[in-house]
């Protein structure tokens, strides 16, 4: 069985993100990028499946700029077998990504797609669901546990107020939540080997997918700074402020 894992190159989670002065987006020049943490969990899960003998090959896919090769190499260093970069300098939206992944999944004949539940840059949380719809596969989103048995994927999902377990017929789409696993450190020999693993570079046009944006970003602004509080003299003043200034009572 082949597994497809999608990874996204995002601003590193340690970076304090700054909004561009013109409000067109966030500052990306000279900022550290790394693999979306949820995708790292997806790679780790696939590698564990491979170590358990449940899958023969892990194909890792990224859609993004040339530098996304570094992200793919990180996934290869963790244990993925080969990589595909669908290179585009344009901003890609979840639907375009889902269409491209659909095309890759069909072309490669994969039976399981594992991807992060969302990317920490735009927090869209849409790609996995759209991918499942386009492929017409069942989906197990927000997975905190994944077991493959008897040709089915048993997925424990984190939902409001508890855990839900679903059993999916394969092929299926799984999206990963934080508690699914703790990604490993890539070993030095695997980092060295990753450089020699195959990495194909294609374009959206190769799959006949139009990635032009369908959404228009009007403005990006930083959250308003919190103002310092004020001390009130007594309960009467507090009541007055709540009633007339905050207008909450």
């Amino acid at each position, binding site marked *: 069985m082949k597994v497809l894992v999608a990874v996204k190159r995002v601003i590193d989670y340690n970076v304090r993100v700054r909004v561009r002065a013109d409000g067109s987006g966030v500052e990306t020049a*000279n900022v550290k990028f790394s693999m979306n943490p949820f995708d790292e969990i997806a790679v780790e899960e696939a590698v564990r499946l491979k170590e358990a003998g449940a899958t023969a090959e892990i194909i890792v896919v990224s859609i993004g700029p040339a530098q996304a090769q*570094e992200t793919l190499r990180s996934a290869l*260093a963790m244990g993925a077998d080969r990589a595909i970069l669908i290179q585009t300098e344009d901003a890609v939206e979840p639907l375009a990504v889902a269409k491209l992944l659909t095309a890759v999944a069909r072309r490669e004949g994969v039976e399981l797609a594992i991807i992060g539940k969302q990317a920490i840059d735009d927090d869209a949380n849409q790609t996995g669901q759209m991918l499942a719809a386009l492929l017409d596969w069942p989906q197990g989103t927000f997975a905190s546990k994944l077991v493959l048995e008897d040709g089915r994927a048993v997925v424990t999902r984190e939902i409001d107020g508890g855990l839900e377990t679903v059993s999916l017929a394969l092929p299926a789409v799984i999206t990963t939540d934080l508690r699914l696993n703790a990604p490993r*450190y*890539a*070993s*030095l020999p695997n980092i*060295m080997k*990753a450089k020699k693993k195959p990495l194909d570079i294609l374009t959206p046009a190769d799959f006949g997918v139009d990635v032009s944006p369908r959404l228009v970003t009007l403005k990006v602004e930083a959250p308003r700074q919190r103002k310092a509080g004020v001390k009130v003299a007594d309960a009467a003043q507090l009541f007055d402020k709540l009633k007339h200034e905050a207008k909450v009572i």
Partner: protein
Amino acid sequence: MATYKAPLRDMRFVLYELHNGAALAQLPGLEDMTPELIDPVIEEAAKVCEEVLLPLNRSGDEEGCRLENGVVRTPKGFIEAYRLFREGGWTGIACDPAFGGQGVSHSANALVEEMICSSNLSFGLYPGLTHGAYKALYTHGSAALKERYLPKLVDGIWSGTMCLTEPQCGTDLGLSRTKAVPQDDGSYRLTGTKIFISAGEHDLTENIIHLVLARLPDAPKGIKGISLFLVPKFLVNEDGSIGARNGVSCGAIEHKMGIKASATCVINFDDATGWLVGEPHKGMRAMFTMMNEERLAVGLQGLGLAEASYQGAVAYARERLQGRSLSGTKYPEKSADPIIVHPDIRRMLLTMRSTAEGCRALGGWVAQAVDVQNHTSDPKAKRDAEDFIALMTPIVKALFTDLGFEATNLGIQVMGGHGYIREHGMEQYIRDARIAQIYEGTNGIQALDLVGRKLGAHMGRYLRQFFHPVAAFITTHADDKALERYVDPLTKAFVRLQQATGQLARVGLSRPEEAGAAASEYLRLFGLVALAYQWARMAEVSLTKLEEKTGEDDFYRAKLSTASYFMDKVLPQTGSLFASIMAGGATLTEFPEAAF
């Protein structure tokens, strides 16, 4: 809680921008060492250091090692961390691929070593000593010994030690008494006691391979009668599996000021079976192969701790609110200004910063020469690199560890009482840094090595490898207005160094005690000039990058400001060092012994 993030941006600056490390990939055997490979290696190393080794640093210091029935227990978490480190392939990072190593360039490995030292020096000593043993065995061992022991040392499933010191012999190894008696089967039986053996006994690996200096029965007296032997804790069967316990035991572990999680052992050899490494009576030569590399590595310990202490001090200075800026309130909305506004706090922080970044740059220059020495096929380039390394080794070892100690001391001072108490981990840095000035040859010995062995060698040939590039740099930039601010002070200090070198050359031959009296100050003078040269070069690179508008103006401007600080506030120390050297050593040598 210690704060440390590996300074990856500055490391890349040193490796690629300052020293053109990408060119190393043109050397035979280093073809893979391109930025595309080195970057992920140092990034992953940074993760392991920050997330696995750093959290065990203070707990390891508090707990220390324990000796229980002859077995040393490392602190909680060390076994798991070592397993992760070993399974990650980090023990073999700079070893030959022929024995399972990863063959990473020395200059990239030096960056990883620095991170390990910043995160957890005690932990780093275990694989560090193994690497020393690897190196001695790799260079001088027979094919059979290498085949049997090297793959396991590279893998890290076995570790190594270097057994030199005995109760009556430290610096003067000619006094060593451990005996080795030849056996009919070609092995030897060793008897004696070694002390201060780092990683001599511990619970991290299934076997420990000791490299031991000892005397054969027919050995000449003194230093020319020392041979090197390999003595395993457990004998190794023909098939490579672990056999019977050898006559090696741990008699005690030392209770010491710092590096408490590193087991410093008394090791007793009682008729222990061993094998000769290299030729009889040529043990010192073999030992020095290891020792020279170790001295460069010890220098990195000073650098690593300076960096860690700097980061801790900066974080505190930004948060600690006390008093108001002398030029008027800077943060009116706060109850007081953070102490980072005060000039004296900035003096300490910038001294630490210029130490860490300067030493990283200088260390990077030397590390690159090690790569050239190990890989070049050009005999002239190889000899030049060897000369340069020979000259700079005592400087890297003593200068980095002295400045590292001073930096960790400032780190405490910035934090005041909070630096002195244990909670923040700042006082551990100074205790850990202290040993680096002592082991692998005290810094006094390094100074004597520089003055006694390195200056005069081959009619001053080693010196050229430093003096020529500095002189050429000064000439090239003599009329460079933009660099004047950095080149002028460098020139002034360089002249002092040349004059002091001339003075030592004149008096040193006829009156060796004069050279001995000046040695430590001369090494510091030399080291400061070497740092000044690196700072001037960093300024040169930074100015070019600013012109290229790479978008990282903050980084390069900070470099220029730190370079200016170093030139104005640190380099003038060369004036007092020069005066003291030129005053001669009579006040030292003529002081009546009885009056002490």
